[in-house]
């Protein structure tokens, strides 16, 4: 104990200058810079500059991130967030501090959900996006914002198009942007794409709700839905003059539920079908004629989904491909559209396949070609005949089946086709294939990670069990058991002897990185997304994906997931879906227990045989997953109701008893409840002061820290989790409670951060970081009331709950912190670091704990004894030193949770951040890598020196002996 204390004192004194060294950056850390799962309508290949043939892949993802990806290697060229801030993942919305008040909610309902769209025109040099109420133009090469135009009164953009400007292209852009916005009666605005200036505006005063825009070479069509009172499901189509936006003519059309509007240079058309369609209605805009297309095929299942892909060539007629999906298979129908007669005729059908597939349209020499992608092969159909002109086998099936795809086809010579396909799988993986060969894949599903857990290497555990058995048996039985074990081990001897020479040579030549991997332990990281994917990442291999699994019966709906890893088995509790168990090493499903139980979280409690999972319902009630499975008697849980009104203390076991409740008063909400980490070892029970006296730490395993917020103030409560007694409480007035107030509790201290007034007297506000340390008594060498009590006592015995002595300090920080965590090491000897997410800088930092010492002397220099303790003068502003940045020069966007795990090395802690968008992992050594040989150590040189010395001794020894003998005879 004392040694530990001394060691930790020593470590805390040397830890003052740690940073990430240049040669460690990009080697010890890994980062998946993600965009989110790309959406079908907003993903395409596009040439950013007219001078080059090289194209980039552009997308707007469902996370409302616009970005460009290099098709060669899958790296992000640029990315920007359209939504500000990033949209919250649905499953953590309940926990989010922010709840829009009624007015905001009402406003949100009236304008509807934000719609995203991405437009690009070859050779224009920019891409235009719309999301929410903003239309923005971005430089296609570097993602710089060229201009942005916000719609009046926050009205959402419903649709936008690019049309040829018809102006002189030397002075302005060759295209203009046409925007439709509004709620009751839409407005069509034509914007100059080079500046965003308004060219003309058309206002519809009829009160119909605007829906779509469409355009052909000659005219613009504005489609609005008539109010349901007048005529249900009827669309009014108005054609506008491209030059001045004046209304030409209009007509009303009756359509079905699901409507799509498609624009081609020759013809624009509107199509509609019911929920489970047998046929489809298509109308070429500008004419009154409605064509009914039959989609049914004999002896197939009910049609589940219909999607339309336009194949607009330059020449008339235009083509559309209707992709029809049933439960088991899919096929496609191709139609020709004659813009003159406004007739739609069926050309041919593409064959039915009993598999999931995706279609892509690409134009070769002005003629559309259709690409069909299945899990086994890629087929390219010529538009004219509907026959396969090229076929490539796929070397790898897609993750969860093909979702949607974009194709770029090149024709060399007569019939030599080359194809590049960007495919977004149902499982959320974005891949690029060149002629069927996988070029790269981006794990975009990781943008939805809501839970993560570390998997320990379990290979050594079997031996540990056997040794444990031998230690607890009588000597004779233990001896026979040991003999048997050694006999069993003999069977591995030949193999071991065989690989002995290679292991010796490889042991000499292994790089430092590989040795380190062995020392850190072969940990895997299993993450689960809100949409049902389970992925294992290997932190030792730059976060490479080891295996991935899509949950059975998964859907797009976001769900709460809780992961638990035990003995190499990952148990995943998915809200309203069930319990999945997966083998952690290879990702194979072990079992799936379907249940529609609804929960907000899962707590794993120790049971009499195996750990027991308790599902926490919305009101905070813990329920076991199986009735017979109950936790050991005397297990205590703390739960929070989803509404944030109550924190409850429970005693579970054969019967569940609600022990205590902590309620927030009317008008306030409990936003955060934290406890000490499950693995939080303490190496020293006291703090040695400069005069060799000891301040004893208040170390209770049963502490919960509760943040209760009001409109403009919040209170921090520290509770004993067994009895519900309030141990400490402090109120901050005039604080911003709309932004998160992260907090963390570890060892004998807790910290939290917020934005609020720095002083009760001054109105100025700043970001603050508050630290509170808990001690048993204010007097050194005194344990207060705890000193007199016996070593073992219950939380319920009188006199056991004592209030801690608190030492507090507050610091001004220059950046807001959105999430906090603390590093964990195996023994807790290494000093700790506070891990924080800085959302404004897109960074993760580690603040050394010694900087936050609340005992730092204020307004005076430290005394000799304080210097000996490692204390230095308090400064109100805590500078975020660039050395603290774990993410160094990386842009780590949207991290909402950071977890940490110990390694086999005491000095080193693994860190992993996930949540909003990116995932980031690294390892930290808060007290430097004191148990690892430095880079200067050369194993080969050491062995060489020893060998040379041995050789020298062997050569010299006979010579010296002979000399000694000769000297003896001479006398």
């Amino acid at each position: 104990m004392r040694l530990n204390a001394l060691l930790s004192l020593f470590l805390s004194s040397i830890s003052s200058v740690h940073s990430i060294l240049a040669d460690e950056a990009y080697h010890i850390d890994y980062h998946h810079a993600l965009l989110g799962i790309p959406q079908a309508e907003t993903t395409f290949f596009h040439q950013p500059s007219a001078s080059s043939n090289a194209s980039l892949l552009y997308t707007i993802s469902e996370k409302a991130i616009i970005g460009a990806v290099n098709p060669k290697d899958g790296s992000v060229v640029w990315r920007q967030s359209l939504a500000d801030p990033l949209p919250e993942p649905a499953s953590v919305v309940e926990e989010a501090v922010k709840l829009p008040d009624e007015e905001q909610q009402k406003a949100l309902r009236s304008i509807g959900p934000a719609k995203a769209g991405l437009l690009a025109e070859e050779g224009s040099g920019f891409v235009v996006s719309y999301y929410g109420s903003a239309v923005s133009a971005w430089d296609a090469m570097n993602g710089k914002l060229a201009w942005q135009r916000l719609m009046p009164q926050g009205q959402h953009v419903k649709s936008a198009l690019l049309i040829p400007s018809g102006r002189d292209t030397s002075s302005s852009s060759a295209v203009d942007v046409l925007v439709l916005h509004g709620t009751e009666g839409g407005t069509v605005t034509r914007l100059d794409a080079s500046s965003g200036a308004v060219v003309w505006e058309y206002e519809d005063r009829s009160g119909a709700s605007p829906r779509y825009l469409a355009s052909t070479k000659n005219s613009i069509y504005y489609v609005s839905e008539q109010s349901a009172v007048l005529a249900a499901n009827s669309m009014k189509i108005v054609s506008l003059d491209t030059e001045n936006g004046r209304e030409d003519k209009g007509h009303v059309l009756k359509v079905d539920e699901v409507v799509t509007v498609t624009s081609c240079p020759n013809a624009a058309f509107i199509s509609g079908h019911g929920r489970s369609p047998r046929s489809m209605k298509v109308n070429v805009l500008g004419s009154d004629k409605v064509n009914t297309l039959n989609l049914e095929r004999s002896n197939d299942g009910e049609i589940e989904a219909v999607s339309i892909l336009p194949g607009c060539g330059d020449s008339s007629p235009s083509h559309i491909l209707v992709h029809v999906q049933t439960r088991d298979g899919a096929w496609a129908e191709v139609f020709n559209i004659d813009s003159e007669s406004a007739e739609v005729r069926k050309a041919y059908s593409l064959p039915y396949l009993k598999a999931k597939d995706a279609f892509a349209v690409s134009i070769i020499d002005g003629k559309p070609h259709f690409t069909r992608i299945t899990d086994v092969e890629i087929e390219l159909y010529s538009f004219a005949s509907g026959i396969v002109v090229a076929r490539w086998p796929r070397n790898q099936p897609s993750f969860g089946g093909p979702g949607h795809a974009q194709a770029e086809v090149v024709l060399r010579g007569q019939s030599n086709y080359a194809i590049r396909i960007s495919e977004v799988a149902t499982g959320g993986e974005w891949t690029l294939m060149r002629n069927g060969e996988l070029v790269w894949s981006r794990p975009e599903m990781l943008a939805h990670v809501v839970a993560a857990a570390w998997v320990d290497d379990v290979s050594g555990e079997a031996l540990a069990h056997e040794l444990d058995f031998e230690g607890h048996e009588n000597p004779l039985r233990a001896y026979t058991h040991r003999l048997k074990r050694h006999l069993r081990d003999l069977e591995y001897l030949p193999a071991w002897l065989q690989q002995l020479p290679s292991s010796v040579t490889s042991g000499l030549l292994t790089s430092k990185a590989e040795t380190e991997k062995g020392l850190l332990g072969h940990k895997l990281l299993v993450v689960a997304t809100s949409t049902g994917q389970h992925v294992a990442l290997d932190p030792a291999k730059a976060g490479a994906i080891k295996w991935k699994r899509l949950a059975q019966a998964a859907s797009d709906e976001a769900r709460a997931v809780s992961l638990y890893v035990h003995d190499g088995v990952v148990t995943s509790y998915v809200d309203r879906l069930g319990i999945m168990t997966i083998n952690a090493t290879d990702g194979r499903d072990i079992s799936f227990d379907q249940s529609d139980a609804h929960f907000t979280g899962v707590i794993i409690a120790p049971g009499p045989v195996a750990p027991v999972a308790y599902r926490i319902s919305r009101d905070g009630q813990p329920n076991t997953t199986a009735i017979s499975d109950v936790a050991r008697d005397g297990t205590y849980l703390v739960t929070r109701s989803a509404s944030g009104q109550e924190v409850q203390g429970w005693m579970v076991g054969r019967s569940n008893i609600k022990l205590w409740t902590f309620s927030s008063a009317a008008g306030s909400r409990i936003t955060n409840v934290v406890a000490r980490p499950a693995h939080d070892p303490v190496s020293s029970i006291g703090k040695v002061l400069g005069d060799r006296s000891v301040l004893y730490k208040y170390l209770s395993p049963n502490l919960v820290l509760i943040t209760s917020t009001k409109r403009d103030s919040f209170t921090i409560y520290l509770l004993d989790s067994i009895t519900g007694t309030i141990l400490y409480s402090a109120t901050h007035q005039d604080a911003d409670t709309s932004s998160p107030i992260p907090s963390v509790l570890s060892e004998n201290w807790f910290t939290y951060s917020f934005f609020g007034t720095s002083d009760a007297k001054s109105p100025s506000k700043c970001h603050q970081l508050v630290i509170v340390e808990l001690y048993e008594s204010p007097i050194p060498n005194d344990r207060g009331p705890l000193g007199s009590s016996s070593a073992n006592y219950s939380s319920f015995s009188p006199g056991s709950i004592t209030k801690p002595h608190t030492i507090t300090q507050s610091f001004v920080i220059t950046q807001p912190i959105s999430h906090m965590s603390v590093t964990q090491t195996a023994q807790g000897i290494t000093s700790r670091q506070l891990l924080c997410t800085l959302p404004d800088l897109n960074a993760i930092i580690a603040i050394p704990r010694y900087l936050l010492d609340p005992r730092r002397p204020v307004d005076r220099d430290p005394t000799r004894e304080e210097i000996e303790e490692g204390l230095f003068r308090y400064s109100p502003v805590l500078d975020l030193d660039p050395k603290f940045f774990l993410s160094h020069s990386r842009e780590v966007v949207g991290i909402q949770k950071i977890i940490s795990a110990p390694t086999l090395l005491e000095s080193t802690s693994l860190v992993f951040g996930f949540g909003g968008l990116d995932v980031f992992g690294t390892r930290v050594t808060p007290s430097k890598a004191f148990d690892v040989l430095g880079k200067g150590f050369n194993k080969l040189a050491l062995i060489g020196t020893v060998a040379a010395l041995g050789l020298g001794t062997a050569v010299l020894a006979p010579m010296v002996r002979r000399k000694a003998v000769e000297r003896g005879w001479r006398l």
Partner: protein
Amino acid sequence: MRVSLFAAAALMLQDVHAEVTILPQLQSVDIFYQLMRSSPDDKGSLLAFVKYNVSSLESTLLSYSPPATSDTATELGTSHPLFRISTNTPDGSTTVTSLSTFSPTYTQTLTLHLRDDDLVFAASISAEPLVLSPPTPQDPKTSLKVVVVRPQPAPTPKLNVRKPVVVDADGKEVPQEPEVEKTLFQKYWWALALVAVLALAGGGDK
């Protein structure tokens, strides 16, 4: 101008005064105890009735009736029956204590936590071993200490104190007169005095 200022000040004072008189200085709270395994609709028994002053946080215990320590334990046959301590405040919290807390060999402390609206939202009872004399049957009221607490004022950054900068009409900083330097004599008079004393005292050697 000055008159109006005075008037405003007077008004403000009056306001403050009015507020103070409107606010009830004295509040009271009922503390209940209830056996943990009892039925949920059991209201519990009155443990204490306390009046307290919201500004000075002084309190008076008006009634106190702790559960009987010996007979309850034998009745239930368990060693430490648990009790839930609650208050009559709406949206109040509860805490847990065991019967042994009420043992006469301990002094009990009832801690009442106040909320923003000056109501007691949580009450907890703790005990410390009696330091003095063996327990003598006495009035239980005298053995209960009542403490009323509010959340502590939270720590704030200790900003550096600098004298406010004085600016003139143009916004330029008016240089403040530096502290008048002491003259050499003012600083070192004691040295001169010492020399003088030495000179005087060491004079008569011849």
